Each structure stands twice: as structure tokens, then as C-alpha cells.
């Protein structure tokens, strides 16, 4: 690895196999990913996708069956957790119940053999950072779930790790507190400048907080990119389906020139879309269109729009927007999400035949 020093973390060809023989479970299958300095990086996927295993490998609680893990250019795959400059915020918080809030936060520094006054100073600074100054002397059992969450964060940040690992830390909080902590985490990351690696199964959490997201399934990383990349340009059906709502449409490639394909949609007109690398340049493909990209068409479509025809089956009102569930002329299902913004657009009724316009740039060809 020549450029590994530029990255906070480099995972190179890592596999993790639990058990053996018939009970062999391949939790990670030849995974490689690089995480940049000072990045808020999220591992996103359903349970069992290997995201927590990857986090545990980074923390040192597990060791890879194959492959290497570099932290700022140093190979750490063989080091025990206590010799890695990496700290973890656990899903259960794992606060020490026999110690006070202050002692919990100071634990890491104490174990590093820092002098008492330095430990005290840092603890006070951390308490201030997470706005918990008043609770320093409390037992961890005497504070609320949200406060425990902050203590867990402060405890993991106090030794100023090179990388902070967060294992679904918000999943035990209620909705409102979760929203608050999302902003709080982002603020802490900005203020401390520490690389955050965040594990979650919540796509919204991933989109709102991350600089980059890695979508995982079955021990593989399917796609890495900014939240916008992942949402607007999903590479695979699973990614499109897992993140946000999606309409999947069948299409046939007519011809390809300069990486762009002319596609005939089963449900309507021709359209154009970029073809992902390594795909066959003919045959049937699936494209994805996000529901909010559609609009109902009164007159002629724009130059860079394609038209679908169908019938409205159900109308669901959501306050800020309305969802129209349709059956297209090809028999495929399609959902259009229209903002309720009184711009005078025609609102079709249940059972009416409609034409839907989609901008060409919103059509994304999927790999599978």
C-alpha cells in the first residue's frame, strides 16, 4: 500500500469466516475499502450484512481470517484492542456501572497512564463538549438513556483516538432524541476532527450524517459513495431498494455510444441513460426512477423528458406530499410522489388515466 498513509483506514482483501465445516459462516467476503482522514463514514446494511463484523475487526475484538487492515498506514490486524488507537461507542453503551460519569470518561486516559491532572482536565473538557458538566459525580445508572449515550461518546472521545467507531449508537433512543443526537454527532465530528466510522441499518441516518456511505449485503460492500451518489446513482437494485423508495422499470438497450445507451422502456417512450462499466451493451436491463422525480403531464414533454402512461390506482395523502400508486401500460407498478405545494398542478383522481414525465437524468441503469 503506497498511498495508505493518506487514508485513516485501509481494509485490504479482508475475509472473516466464523465456524467451520457445515456451520461455516462467511461474515465478510474479500472486502476492501478505504476511509479518508476526518471523514464521517457510514457502513449501512441490513442485519447480518457484515457491517458490525467489520467494525469489530477494526476495534480488534475479532481478527480477520484473511486480509490486512491498515490504520494510518500501519498494519494493525494482529494487535489486541488495547493497543489500537481506536475507540468504540457500543450499541449498549457498555458504561461501567460501578464508576461515576467522570470516572467512566477518564478510564481510557487512566489506562494510558496519563497524569491525574491531565485526566481531570480532559474529563472536564469532554463533559463540556457533550454538555454534561453537572452530572460528573453521578452513577451511570442514575442518568437517562440520552445522557448515557453522551457519556459513552465522551468516554470514547476522551483519549482522542485516531478513529472513532460507532456501533448503531442511536438505535436505543426514541425518535426525537435520535434526531437530536444525529446533529450532535455531526457537531462532535466537526469539532474534534476525528474520523468517525458509523454502523447503522437506518438509511435516513446514513444519508443525513455521512460524508460517504458504504452499502453492504451478505459480507460484501456493494457501493461506496456520497449520500447523493448512493441515492441518485445506485449501482444495484439492492442499493436502490434499500435506500429510499424506488420504481423499477424494465427496458431494452437499443444501441450504445460513448458510454450512453438508448433505452426502450416497456412502459413508454425511449430514453437515454449512462451505462455502468462492465455491462453488456445489449439486451434487457432494469432501470430505477425515484418517485419524487415524476410529474404529471398536461401538454407536451420537455426535451429531456420521457413519458410513461398508466392509470392511478390509489392516492395516499402525506401532508407535505401525496403518493400516487399507478399501474403502467406495461403492467408494472409505479409510485409518483408529488409535493403538495399549490403550484396549480393538476391532481389526478383515483382511476384516471395519466401521463407521467420523468427527466432523462433521473433514469439510472442498474447492474443486476
Amino acid at each position: 500500500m503506497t498511498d495508505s498513509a493518506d487514508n485513516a483506514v485501509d481494509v485490504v482483501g479482508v475475509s472473516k469466516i466464523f465456524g467451520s465445516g457445515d456451520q461455516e459462516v462467511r461474515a465478510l467476503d474479500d472486502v476492501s475499502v478505504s476511509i479518508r482522514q476526518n471523514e464521517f463514514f457510514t457502513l449501512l446494511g441490513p442485519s447480518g450484512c457484515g457491517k458490525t463484523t467489520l467494525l469489530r475487526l477494526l476495534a480488534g475484538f475479532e481478527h480477520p481470517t484473511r486480509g490486512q487492515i491498515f490504520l494510518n498506514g500501519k498494519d494493525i490486524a494482529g494487535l489486541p484492542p488495547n493497543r489500537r488507537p481506536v475507540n468504540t461507542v457500543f450499541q449498549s453503551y457498555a458504561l461501567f456501572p460501578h464508576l461515576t460519569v467522570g470516572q467512566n470518561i477518564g478510564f481510557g486516559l487512566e489506562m494510558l497512564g496519563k497524569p491525574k491532572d491531565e485526566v481531570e482536565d480532559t474529563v472536564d473538557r469532554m463533559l463540556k463538549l457533550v454538555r454534561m458538566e453537572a452530572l460528573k459525580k453521578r452513577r451511570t445508572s442514575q442518568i437517562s438513556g440520552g445522557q448515557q449515550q453522551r457519556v459513552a461518546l465522551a468516554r470514547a472521545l476522551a483519549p482522542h483516538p485516531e478513529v472513532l467507531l460507532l456501533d448503531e449508537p442511536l438505535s436505543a433512543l426514541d425518535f426525537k432524541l435520535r434526531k437530536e443526537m444525529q446533529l450532535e454527532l455531526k457537531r462532535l465530528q466537526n469539532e474534534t476532527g476525528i474520523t468517525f466510522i458509523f454502523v447503522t441499518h437506518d438509511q435516513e441516518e446514513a444519508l443525513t450524517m455521512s460524508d460517504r456511505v458504504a452499502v453492504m449485503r451478505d459480507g460484501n460492500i456493494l457501493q461506496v459513495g456520497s449520500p447523493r451518489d448512493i441515492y441518485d446513482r445506485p449501482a444495484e437494485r439492492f442499493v436502490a431498494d434499500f435506500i429510499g423508495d424506488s420504481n423499477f422499470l424494465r427496458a431494452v438497450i437499443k444501441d450504445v455510444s460513448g458510454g450512453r445507451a438508448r433505452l426502450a422502456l416497456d412502459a413508454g417512450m425511449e430514453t437515454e441513460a449512462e451505462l455502468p462499466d462492465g455491462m453488456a451493451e445489449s439486451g434487457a436491463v432494469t432501470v430505477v426512477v425515484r418517485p419524487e422525480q415524476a410529474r404529471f403531464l398536461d401538454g407536451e414533454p420537455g426535451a429531456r423528458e420521457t413519458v410513461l402512461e398508466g392509470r392511478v390506482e390509489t392516492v395516499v395523502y402525506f401532508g407535505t406530499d401525496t403518493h400516487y400508486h399507478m399501474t403502467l401500460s406495461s403492467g408494472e407498478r409505479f409510485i409518483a410522489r408529488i409535493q403538495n405545494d399549490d403550484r396549480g398542478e393538476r391532481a389526478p383522481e383515483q382511476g384516471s388515466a395519466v401521463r407521467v414525465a420523468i427527466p432523462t437524468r433521473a433514469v439510472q441503469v442498474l447492474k443486476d
Partner: protein
Amino acid sequence: MADPLSTGVGGAGERRAKRFSVQTMPGFTIMAALCFIALYAPLFPMVFYSFNAGESIAVWQGFSWRWYESAWGNELVKDVTIRSLVVACFASAIATTLATLAALGTTRTEAFKGQTFIYVIINQPLMVPEIVTGVALLVFFAMIKVATGYTGLAYLIAAHTAFCIPFAYLPIRARLEGMDKTLEAAAADLYATPFQAFRRITLPLMAPGIVAGAMLAFVISLDDVVITELVKAAGQDTLPTYMLGQLRRAITPEINAISTALLAITVVLLTAIFFLTRKKE
């Protein structure tokens, strides 16, 4: 991965009325009361007559502390009590140490082959009849006595240690199993070496289990008759074997007084164990 909020608490509440519960069966209260009476009623006359002013254990002749004073002043009682305490202290200390190590070995390691077998070995004294263990030890120790010539208290301590181990082991293991292993992972994550993690996190958190185990072992050792009777050398009576010996002669309420004192110690210790091992909410 489990979502702690998604347990079906609400559903259980709705169906509560239809759930089977022993407490709602007819006669439950009476049965429970009868069981408690059968268990504890015999203790009351014993305690009662320990305060008898007369010499009988069946005819009440007024209240007095006489038999407590007599027991307290009895040199023989003093001797055997001290011996009992010495044996109980050593046996419970050694048993607790071994039980702590065994509990760590069976809960803080990866699952290994033969783990069930290990449980059986550790808990063997609970299953083998005491008299069998006693006879086995008698024969075994006799061989050692012949070979070494040593006839001291160590035999009793060793025998007591052996049967105290499971009593110390069970509460310690229960405590460790109830302890979140993530705490030790968190300590390691925060730069604690395995030894530091044990001393700063595991040991303080398992301490109530250790104390409870030690107390239980202590009480068990203090009460033992069968094995002690078989293993002890001449002049090595403990309090229970001394009392057994006394019962063969003229019985006075002094025996009641000693028994009541033992009962009081046991109740105090068991109450302490209860408070140490109950789950805090």
C-alpha cells in the same frame, strides 16, 4: 443487533388474564402456608425452650438467659466453636478462591469441548451422597496419615473445601453470567490490558457474587456433620459433632441455646447473601 424496544410487552399484558398461573389455583395459599409451617414450626419450640429457666427441654419453668450463659462459659463449647470457625474460614476462603477461578474459566472463555463435564465435576459434591464422600475421604486420608504421620486439622479443612466449592461456585457463576461481556470489551477498547480490565472492571463487578459465595460456603462448612464426623481425628470435634455427641447423653436446654445461636448466625448470613445477589433495578 436486537432492538431493546421491540419486545412484546404490550401483548403480554393483554393476555395476562388467560395465562396459566399456579398462584390462581384453588388452595394455593393453604398449601403454601402448610409447607412453611412444616419447614419452620419445629424451630420454634427449640428456640422457645432455649430460654427455659428449668432443666427440661419440654416443661416451661420461666424465662432466663441461663443456658446461654452456661454455653458461653463452657470451655468445651468454646474449643469446638473456635475449631468450627477456623475450619469454616479456611475452607470457605480456599473454596471461594478456587470457585472464582472456575467460574471465570467457565464463563469468560470461548465454549470448549467437555464444558458440561466440567460443570458436573465442579458440582459433584451436590450429587454424590455425603456419606459416600465421607467414607471415601476417611479411607483416603487414613492412607495419607499412615504415610506421613500428620494428623492435624488440614484433613478437615481439605474435606470441607471440597464440598464447599459448588456452593461458592454457583452464585459467582450466576453473577458473571448476568454481567455484560461488552463491559470487558469496552475496557480493552479503552486501553486496559487484560489484567487491568480484570482488576478494574470484572473483579469489582463480580465482588458481590464472590462475597455471597464465600458466605454460603462458610455456612455450609459450619453446619456440616456427616463428613466431619467421619474425617475428624480424636479430639477434633467441631460444634455440630460436639452437639451430636451431647445429644447422646443428658439433654439440657444448653443444646437449644447453642442451636439457636447457630440459627441466628445462619439467618444473618443468608439475609446478607440475599441482599448481595438480588438484581438491582
